């Protein structure tokens, strides 16, 4: 078992719950014998929308660092062979499905499921028949692996040295909490006004697109490409490049709509 089971919601059983900030966190395990409770070596998968396989989690904190809305906290899990603390999704309802944590996890212990998909019976059937989930992973893995290895091979040792010095004493923060909560509010507002999920996909209006590449940076699934147009195809704007959404890998997460500064991207129902 090297990564989280993608079908855990159907193949695993609900064995217990744990108190989160707003809602209780669901704990899943293969059967009741595979869950021993906090303090043992059998922990199972925690969470539903934000699911972390605690038997795989190595507590490197990458998800806690990556999360823009502070979903995770630490929980002490003594006697577990992988690590003695785990990232717990205390504020799971706050998740904005950006999948940043899924991407950074070095051991693939995190799985994010859109709340809209939970409970619908065809999720599993679809995964088995058309393998869309696997297709996404295959497309994505080379890109992510390369980028990650590249950056973690050559970290900026000077910045690390600076951070070490700064970590020695507690310095006042300058407003990160406010920035995060404002960001969260803005994202929520956008999410509420947009249709999303696997039945929708993003669509670019070429007349409006100014080729700024913001959507490319926001997309977690490498499903936006910039294509060059000949000069005749230029609009009144300056750029000759346009965004192109790749239908196969678009998951309908609305992040690109959120990013677009000129409202050139809309969410359309899949035909």
């Amino acid at each position, binding site marked *: 078992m090297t990564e989280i089971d993608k079908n855990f919601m159907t193949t695993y059983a609900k064995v217990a719950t744990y108190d989160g900030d707003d809602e209780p966190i669901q704990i899943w395990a293969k059967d009741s014998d595979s869950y021993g409770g906090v303090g043992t070596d059998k922990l199972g998968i925690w969470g539903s929308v934000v699911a972390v396989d605690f038997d795989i989690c190595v507590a490197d904190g990458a998800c806690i660092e990556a999360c823009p809305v502070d979903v995770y906290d630490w929980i002490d899990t003594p006697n577990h062979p992988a690590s003695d603390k785990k990232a717990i999704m205390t504020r799971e309802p706050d998740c904005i499905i950006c999948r940043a944590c899924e991407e950074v996890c070095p051991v693939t212990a995190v799985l994010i499921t859109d709340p809209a998909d939970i409970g619908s019976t065809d999720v599993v059937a679809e995964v088995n028949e058309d393998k869309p989930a696997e297709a996404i992973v295959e497309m994505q893995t080379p890109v992510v692996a390369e980028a990650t290895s590249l950056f973690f091979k050559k970290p900026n040792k*000077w*910045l690390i040295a*600076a*951070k070490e010095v*700064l970590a020695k004493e507690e310095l006042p923060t300058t407003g990160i909490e406010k*920035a995060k909560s404002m960001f969260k509010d803005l994202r929520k507002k956008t999410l509420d006004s947009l249709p999303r999920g696997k039945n929708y996909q993003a669509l670019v209006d070429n007349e409006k697109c100014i080729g700024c590449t913001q959507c490319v940076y926001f997309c977690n699934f490498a499903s936006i490409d910039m294509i060059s147009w000949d000069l005749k195809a230029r609009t009144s704007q300056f750029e000759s490049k346009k965004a192109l959404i790749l239908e196969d890998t678009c998951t309908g997460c609305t992040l690109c709509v*959120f990013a677009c500064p*000129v409202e050139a991207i809309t969410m359309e129902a899949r035909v």
Partner: protein
Amino acid sequence: MSRTKPYSRTIPHPLFERLIVEDAMNEEKDSWKPERLHEYGYFPGCVDFMDVEVKFTHLNKGDADHASIAAASIKLLNYADIDPLILDMNIFKCSGHDQLWQGQLEVFDALKEHNMRRLKESGVKIITCSCAECYRTFAVDYDLPGTLGIKVEHITQTLQGRGLKFKAPENVKVAYHDPCRLGRMMGEYEAPRDLIQLVDGATMVELENNKERALCCGVSSMMYCNDATKAVRRKRLDQGTDAGIDLMLGGCPKCYMHMQCMLNEERMNPDEGHHHDYEMMDLMQFLVACLEEKN
């Protein structure tokens, strides 16, 4: 083109700009009083907003961390025996530099009005900024010395001539990249260079274009980032490679942000064949890394 969003055309980081505009338009009427009076006030600027956005857009695949500039500045001010009042973003708002230069005057006026009121309430005599843009905005566009009698300093000027000592953990060849707001606009070229000279073990070289002829990072006031502005930035980075440096130091978080973004982008796409084998850092981060423990 019809536009329903009240934001101007700010492309490089639309969310970052959107957050600042939202913040500006939230009117706060309550009064505020610091716990005690400080002579110095330290204004960190919008580094935390940058962090939130950059983290979300995957641009920190390297390890860009803008909030550490603010933390480093506070630490260095304490090291120089200055106890500043932290004019943080929970109480203050962005200085509005980008909004002013983009032409969003009503947003700038809202930010200015709020900050002026808060500065009056804070009772500081000198305000020091780690950001060259905030420094220029406070000194020239807010005209704080003329209106409130508050002296505005860049943090390099505050730290200059205070007998600080630094020691680099290893020998390093650095170059200083002059931010346009600090150099050409405010005429401060020597203070940051003097600080670098204080670091034992650091050799400073000048880039081909320096001081008043320094090249720009290309994204002045977050107006636009495209192939042309990237060419400007690449030219600047190439000068660093030519000078054979290990570190390029800037005096403005935006220089750090834009240069680091380009370095990250190059490393993410190695096939394109552009590579610069050094790192960009803010001067404050570098100085903190070279801090000697006080006995």
